[in-house]
Structures are given as C-alpha cells and as structure tokens.
C-alpha cells in the first residue's frame, strides 16, 4: 500500500494551488466559503479563467483541449478547488454530456459541441426527470417522433437545474413503446431557443431558483442531434449517471466546511465558554470528522481501483450516499452552531446592493437556507434509496 502522491503529482498539486491563489476573486471565494450561492456571471468568469489555463476540462483528451488527467490528477485538482473555495465547475456540459459524446457521439458532434462547451458558447442543462418519472426514470414519456429530417418532441421535463441559464439541453426521450421501457429511449440534444419550449421556474423551499420545469410542444429537433443510435439512450444515460456520481465524495469541500464550522463554534458562546468546548457539540463534530476521514479513504480506494483499470461500478453508489449524507450532517451542525441566528435568511447579504442590516457572522446569511436546500443531495442524481437498490443488486446480488 502506498498512499503518497508521486513527485509529479505533488508538483501538480503545487501548481494548482498557486493558480487558484492568483486567479480566484476574493468576493466570490467569500460567498463560496460562507455557503452563499454564486451568480451565473461568477460561474462564467471562473470557467473562462480555467479554460485559458486549459483546466476547464482537464480529463478530456488533448485533441479536444483537455489535459488527459488521470483519476489522481482529477482528484488533486478537485481537492484543491474545494479547499480554496473555488466555484464548482457547472458539470452538465464538460462533466456529463462530454463523456457521452466522446464515447457514443459522432465525430461531427464532438467537433462541433465540445469546443463550444469550453468557450462557454453553450450552457447545457439535463433533461432526465419527468413529473411521473423520478426514481423510475425508465418510465419517461416525453416523445420524439421522426418526421423527415426532424424529430417532433412533446412532453415535460422537471427538476432541470439552471434551465433558466441554458441555451442547450440533452434529453432522454421516448422513440419506441416496444419491449421493455429501457429499450425505447433515445438521447438527443435540443436547442432551448426552439419554438415550442417553455421554461417555468420551480422555487425551492429556501426561496431560491435553481430548478425548472420545461414544456415541449411540437418542438422540431434536427435528426443529426440524435446521439448514438435510436433506442439506445438508456445505455448512454447509465454511463452518464456513473460519471455524475463519481464526483460526489466532495471530501475537500466538506473539509473546508468543517474548518468553517470549527471557527464558528470557537467564536460562539455556550455557558459562557466557546461552543466548541461543549461536550455534546464536540461529540457531534468529532463524529462527522471521523465519518469524513473514513470517506476520504473509501474514496481513494475507489480511485485506486479505477486507476488500476477497474470500472467504477456500485462503488460510486457508496460514495454518493456517504458524500451527500456527510455534507448534510455538516450543514445540519452549522445551522445548530448558529443558535438563534439560524432564523436569519438573507442570502443577498454579501451581494452588492444589499441595504439591510449587517448579518454577523456572515455564514448566518444562508446557513439555514443551505441546510434545507441541501436536503436535495440525498434526493438528486438517483436518490439514496435508489443507490441502495443498486448496491443490493450489484454488490450483494440480492
């Protein structure tokens, strides 16, 4: 067993660290570190900086502008970004659609869509869930019917993150009702500006707007926007979901959040002592820290097996369950650590133009909001119950 990085990996780590140091904007880092949502503009500016360095899509092949990072380099990059408080790279294009296009798309599709992801010309969103098809995704009903050189798409998608920013969506659609539900699904790319598309916001319980409903009525989609073969979309979707779940350990982000939580607990007083000295609080915090240390190793073990050529299978489900629950535990304890201040909900308190009373500590501006918002983590990307089904089936053979 050797858990050390190689000399090259260590050098890479130093390079990432100094890049982040020089290029991150302090006010954006302040928002990230205090758990406050960043704007579309903040994301786009950061994507652009990373792209100039060639790091927006580090795992991609060099021919498409990537660095061909292996799993360890990807891990180092994400760890450093997480601990520095860098904005998360919006994953729908570079992290999710791109691997599908590279594996299943046509050369023409790769040549056209991949560069546009890097330049930011396209902002992608993901059209998977439907009102009647969440955990049972394969029952989806949005239909695409061939009509000459087009598909005509009708139906509804929901929980679509950042559809309000997106100009493109990749969708699972039904092209056949023959056989098993999984066998009639296709994967297509749709221009959000097409006539017949309507986006309606879904406001979440914390009052924020991230997700949307999308209605399609007789939307024309050129047949060249079909990815791979008709009715093979389920295979591509599963491939994509595996990619979606591997990045879910969030160890560095959780570590950073624990540091922040410790600071909050040192500054707060309970029984006229620092809250961090309170045995019950200390016990809660220590348990989370231990869980996170364990996850860090569990995650590295998964990475090592991928590095050795084993494909991530149900292990990514383990990571997804643990990563989401540990982050929720931290958000829960952060809220608790603020005491009565947890009533406050002023997510704009760090933005320009906020003219309300100063929120102190700053993390209180959205700590409860964040806690409630992050309940989504055990629901999205395949709910944790679905992950347990996968583990039961693939690892336990039950």
């Amino acid at each position, binding site marked *: 067993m050797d858990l050390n990085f190689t000399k090259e990996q260590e050098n890479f780590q130093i390079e990432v660290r100094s890049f982040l140091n020089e290029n991150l904007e302090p006010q954006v880092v302040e928002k990230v570190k205090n758990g406050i949502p960043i704007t579309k503009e903040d994301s786009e500016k950061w994507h652009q900086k990373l792209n100039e360095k060639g790091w927006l899509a580090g795992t991609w092949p060099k021919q498409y502008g990537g660095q061909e990072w292996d799993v360890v380099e990807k891990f180092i990059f994400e760890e450093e970004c997480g601990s520095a408080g860098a904005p998360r790279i919006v994953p729908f294009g570079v992290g999710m659609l791109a691997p599908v296009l590279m594996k299943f798309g046509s050369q023409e599709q790769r040549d056209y869509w991949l560069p546009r992801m890097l330049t930011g010309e396209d902002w992608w969103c993901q059209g998977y869930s439907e009102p009647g098809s969440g955990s*049972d995704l394969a029952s989806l009903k949005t239909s695409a019917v061939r009509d000459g050189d087009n598909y005509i798409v009708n139906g509804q998608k929901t929980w679509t993150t950042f559809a309000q920013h997106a100009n493109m969506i990749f969708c699972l659609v039904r092209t056949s009702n023959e056989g098993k539900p999984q066998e009639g699904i296709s994967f297509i790319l749709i221009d959000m500006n097409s006539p017949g598309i309507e986006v309606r916001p879904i406001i979440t319980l914390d009052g924020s707007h991230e997700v949307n409903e999308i209605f399609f009525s007789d939307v024309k989609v050129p047949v060249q926007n079909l990815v791979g073969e008709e009715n093979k979309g389920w295979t591509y979707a599963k491939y994509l979901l595996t990619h979606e779940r591997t990045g879910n350990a969030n160890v560095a982000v959780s570590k950073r959040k624990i540091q922040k939580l410790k600071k909050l607990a040192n500054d707060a007083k309970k*029984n006229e002592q620092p809250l961090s000295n309170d045995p019950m609080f200390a016990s809660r915090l220590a348990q989370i820290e231990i869980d996170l240390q364990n996850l860090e190793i569990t995650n590295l073990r998964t990475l090592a097996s991928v590095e050795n050529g084993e494909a991530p299978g149900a292990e990514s489900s383990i990571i997804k369950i643990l990563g989401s629950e540990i982050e929720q535990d931290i958000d829960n304890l952060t809220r*608790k650590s*603020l*005491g*009565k201040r947890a009533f406050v909900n002023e997510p704009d308190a760090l933005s320009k133009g906020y003219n309300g009373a100063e929120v102190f500590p700053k993390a209180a501006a959205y700590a409860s909001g964040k806690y409630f918002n992050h309940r989504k983590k055990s629901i999205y990307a395949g709910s944790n119950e679905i992950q347990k089904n996968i583990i039961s089936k693939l690892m336990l053979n039950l």
Partner: protein
Amino acid sequence: MDFKPSPERQILFDTLKKYFENEYSLSDRNIAAHSDLGYSKKAWEAMRELGILESLIDPELDGFGGTALDISTVFEALGRGLVVEPFLEVGILAADVLSRGNDAQKSLVKKILENECLPILAHSETDTEYSKSFVETKLSVEADGSYKISGTKRMIKHASEATHFLVTCRNTGDASSEEGISIACIPTDREGIKIDSFATIDGGRVSDLTFTNVSISSEELVGELGMSYSIVSHAIDTGILAICSEALGIMERIKELTLEYLKTRKQFGVPIGKFQAIQHRMAQLLVEIEQARSSVINATIYFDDETEREKTISAAKFSIGKIGTLVAEESIQLHGGMGMTWEYDLGHYAKRLVLIDHEFGDEDFHLQKYISL
C-alpha cells in the same frame, strides 16, 4: 385513565382546525410570513375575533383560559395551521410577564385583548446562550433614583411593530445569575432604542435591539428590582410548552401530507407506499411522533408543579427537538423533489419544525439541563 381532552377543549381544537383549513390559506400565509411585516394584520384581526388570545389568558384578566391544557390545545391547532401571527410572542410571553406586574401592567393584558397594544418580550442575548438567566443588558441606578438600561437583545421575533418592549436587564450578579434580573416595560418609541431586522427562513421577522442609556422610571419595572427571574422563567417555560404543542400540530400535518403522498405517488407501477423500505420509515415516524406527543402531555400534566415543571419541560423540548428534525428530514426525503418546493405545503411545515429547535434552547441544551435537574 383518560387522556382525551375535555369536550370544551375538543370543540375549541376542532373549531380552530376547521378555521385554519378553510380560512387560513397557506399560500397567503407564505406571502405574509416573508413580507416586510412578517405576518398578516388581516389574519391577525380575524383570528383575534375567534377568541384565540382570550383562550390563552386567565379569566382574571378578561380571558377565558390560560391553563397549560388550554395553551397546549390552542398551540397544537396553531401548528396545524402554520400560523405565523404573534400569538406566542404577545399572547404567551408578553401576557405571562405582564400578568405578574402592577395594575397598570396588568391592564396592558386587557389592552392586548382589545387590540390596543402589542408588547414583546426582549430577553434573549447572545445567539447561542439559551440559559433563561443569561442577561448582560445592564441596568444602572441614577442619582435621582431612576434607571437607565444599555445592552443588546438578539433575534427578537415580531419586534418591529411592537408598542412596548419588556426588556430583561440586570443591576447585579454574573451574566448567568438568577439574582439581579429585572424587567422593564417601556414604550418602543423611547429614546435610545435601535432596531435592526432580518428576514427569516421560517417566516416572520426577527430583530436585534440595541438599548443605549434608555431611561426607565421605577413604575416601569415588572416585579421588584433584581427579583424578576421567576417571572421570566415562568414565561419562557410557558413559551416552551406552547411551541412544543405547535410542533405536535406541525408533525401531525406532516404525517398526513406524507401518508397521502405515499399512497398516491406511483413509481415502478405501484404507489411508493407499497415498498417495504418506505413503509418501515413511515412507521418509524409514526412511532416517534407518538413519543413526542407523550412528552408534551407529560409536560402539560406537571406544568403547575413547581418541583417537576422544569424537568418535564426540558424533557419535552429535547424530545421535540430531536424528533422534529428527524420528522422534517424524513418527510422531505420520502417526498423526493416535491418536498423541496416552495409551492407545496410540506417544506414550510418542515422549516418551522426544525427552527423550533432554535427557540428557547435546542435539544442539546435541554438534555444537559435535564441531566442537571
């Protein structure tokens, strides 16, 4: 043995329940709860006319209730309705304090019922100190025998529209000492008071109040100088009983919503409530909610017993804190994405339920308190 409420209280509960179902729309409530005022004056008026305030107040002060059972019954109904109007702050905390005061202060309770005043208790200070006796706001005695107070009160709900503040302060003793605590009842337009208010996650507004050399006359003290801890303590215990009961009403409503969802939401061709993994989680919620109810009943039974009150109150607040967060998180998870939306009722109930743990001491605080008693 009979745990059923008396017929009168059952009628009161049913009347309120029906009223909230038919007249107190949750979407209107949400708009008002997150407005600059933090509640609806119209709804406040309408509910006052129902006699809700009177049911919280002793007959001696023109009410027709005020016992622990009355309070528990009414607040469970208020919880079901997710009522954001200031019944806790005015009808319980302020009224309970003022009822121990002089005649002028007692008459303020009657004025509450006549809608002529809106007094608010300004007690809590440091965000994470939950001890009832924690008071650093300083009361100093001037040469002419009058008083001045200086200090900061934090996260005071519904303070921005108040007509009077009931400010706890101390002239002697350490920050957590029960001795040396006084309460001053002053109009909110008194010179030297600054109000900073904030929007909240669960509805209503909260404020930080800064008092800088605010003048007080001796007639404005509620109780004797330095001897008012027991008044504050009783008011807060009553407040805890009220919000624990509120939490019960919320949990019962969450249980109904979740059960309905499990029966109607279909995935894989069947209602998701048919899956055993889901059934067991829902069954566990039911078990926990029954325990929560028992903790509140226990606190109600012993409420007027001076030796047992604090212990059973802490036991109830601990149980509600622990179970409330579990119920909120599990019910959201069982709903999936639907539980995350503003448009659907569940999330609003869940937010209030979790934030109840941040009022008057959280589960950790009350567990430690229970151990110490």
